[in-house]
C-alpha cells in the first residue's frame, strides 16, 4: 500500500500532536506559509522617477540626518549607492535613459524577508519576524558580531562602526510603530508617483499580477520577491530584467535560513555517534596493547624455559664429555704404564 506524502505527514501530525499543541511536524518537508494577513510593499520601478522623496521622509520619520545629497541634485545618481547607518533607504539610477527609453530607478532598503537570514544567523536571536510583516531588531541583546550584515544578500544592513559605546545594526524597520498605529510607512506616504504601495502582501501580489496582465509590454512577466530565497515583503515590478537592477534573478525559492542552517542537523549526529565510536577506537587500542603485551610475555616465558632447557642440555653434555675425557685419559695413562712395564722387561 502506498502512502501519499500528505498521508505520511498526516500520520506524523497525529503522533506529534500528542506531544505538542499542534506544533509543526516533519519540518524537513513542510512548507511554512508565514503569518497570514501580513503586510508588504509593492515597488513599481516603472513608476519611480527618482525624486528621492522617500529618502527624505524616511530620514524624518526615523530622526536621521537629511540625505547628504539634496533632492534635485542629479549628480547623486552618478554612483550606485547603498544604505548606511544614517540612511535606511536610497534610490539608485540603473539606466540613464540616454537611449530614448526612460531612465530606470530602484529604491533599496531592507526587504523584510519571509524567512529572514539575518534572524537565522544571529546567535542571540536579536531579530524577529513579526506577525504584521516587518522584521525587527533588538539592540538590547546584540553583541555586534555583524554576521547578519555579512549574510544579507541584499546588502541592506549597516553598522555604527564609529560608535565605541553602543553600536547598533541600522536598517529599515518598515515603520513598525506607524504600522501598529494604522499608518503607512513614511516612504509609501511620501511617494508622489505611486511607485510604492503599502498593503497586505497577498493583495499586493494580486495587484502586481494584475498590472502585468493589463500592460504586458510595460512589465517583465515576474514579480520579484514573491519566491526568491523564500520570498520578501517588498515586491518589485520592473520593465527591465531584474539583474540590471542589481537583484539576483533566478535564485532558488528555498529560503536562506533553510540553506544556511541545513548543516546544523549534523551537529547532534556528531555528539551522539562520536562517543561510542571513539570509545570503541580506544578499546581497540587498549586491546591491541594488551594482546601485544601478552604475546611479549609469552615469548619471554618461552625464551626463558627454552633457555633453561638448553642450559640443562649443555650442562649434561659437558658433564658427559668431561666423563668421557676422563675415561680416555685414564685409558691412555694405563696403556702408557703397561707399555713402560713391557719395555722394562728382558733386554
Amino acid at each position, binding site marked *: 500500500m502506498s502512502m501519499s506524502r500528505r498521508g505520511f505527514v498526516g500520520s506524523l501530525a497525529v503522533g506529534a500532536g500528542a506531544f505538542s499543541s*499542534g*506544533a*509543526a511536524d516533519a*519540518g524537513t518537508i*513542510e512548507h*511554512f*506559509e*508565514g*503569518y*497570514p494577513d501580513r503586510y508588504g510593499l509593492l515597488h513599481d520601478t516603472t513608476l519611480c522617477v527618482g525624486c528621492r522623496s522617500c529618502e527624505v521622509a524616511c530620514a524624518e520619520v526615523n530622526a536621521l540626518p537629511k540625505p547628504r545629497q539634496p533632492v534635485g541634485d542629479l549628480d547623486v545618481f552618478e554612483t550606485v549607492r547603498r544604505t548606511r547607518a544614517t540612511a535606511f533607504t536610497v534610490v539608485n539610477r540603473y539606466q540613464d535613459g540616454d537611449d530614448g527609453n526612460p531612465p530606470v530607478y530602484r529604491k533599496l532598503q531592507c526587504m523584510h524577508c*519571509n*524567512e*529572514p537570514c539575518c*534572524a*537565522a544567523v544571529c546567535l542571540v*536571536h536579536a531579530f524577529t*519576524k513579526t*506577525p504584521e510583516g516587518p522584521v525587527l531588531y533588538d539592540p538590547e541583546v546584540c553583541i555586534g558580531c555583524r554576521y547578519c550584515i555579512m549574510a544579507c544578500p541584499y546588502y541592506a544592513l549597516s553598522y555604527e562602526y564609529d560608535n565605541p559605546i553602543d553600536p547598533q545594526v541600522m536598517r529599515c524597520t518598515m515603520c513598525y510603530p506607524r504600522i501598529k498605529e494604522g499608518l503607512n510607512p513614511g516612504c509609501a506616504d511620501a511617494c508622489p508617483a505611486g511607485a510604492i504601495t503599502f498593503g497586505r502582501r497577498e493583495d499586493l501580489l494580486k495587484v502586481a499580477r494584475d498590472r502585468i496582465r493589463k500592460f504586458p509590454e510595460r512589465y517583465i512577466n515576474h514579480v520579484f520577491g514573491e519566491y526568491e530565497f*523564500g520570498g520578501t515583503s517588498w515586491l518589485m515590478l520592473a520593465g527591465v530584467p531584474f539583474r540590471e537592477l542589481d537583484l539576483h534573478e533566478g535564485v532558488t525559492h528555498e*529560503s536562506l*535560513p*533553510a540553506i544556511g*542552517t541545513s548543516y*546544523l542537523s549534523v*551537529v*547532534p549526529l556528531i*555528539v*551522539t555517534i562520536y*562517543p*561510542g565510536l571513539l*570509545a570503541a577506537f580506544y578499546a581497540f587500542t587498549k586491546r591491541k596493547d594488551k594482546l601485544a603485551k601478552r604475546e611479549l610475555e609469552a615469548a619471554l616465558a618461552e625464551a626463558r624455559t627454552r633457555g633453561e632447557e638448553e642450559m640443562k642440555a649443555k650442562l649434561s653434555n659437558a658433564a658427559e664429555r668431561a666423563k668421557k675425557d676422563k675415561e680416555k685419559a685414564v685409558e691412555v695413562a694405563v696403556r702408557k704404564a703397561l707399555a713402560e712395564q713391557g719395555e722394562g722387561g728382558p733386554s
Partner: protein
Amino acid sequence: MYHTLFDFLTHTEGATYILIGVLLISFIPFWKFLTEREREE
C-alpha cells in the same frame, strides 16, 4: 503552530541542543556500567 521556518528551527534546534547535552553526559555512566567488570580484574 509555527508560521515561519525560522520560528520552527529556533524551537527545535534549541531543544535539540539541550537534548544532546544530556545524551552526551549520560554516555559516561553508561560506559562505566558497561566496563565495570573489566576494571575490577
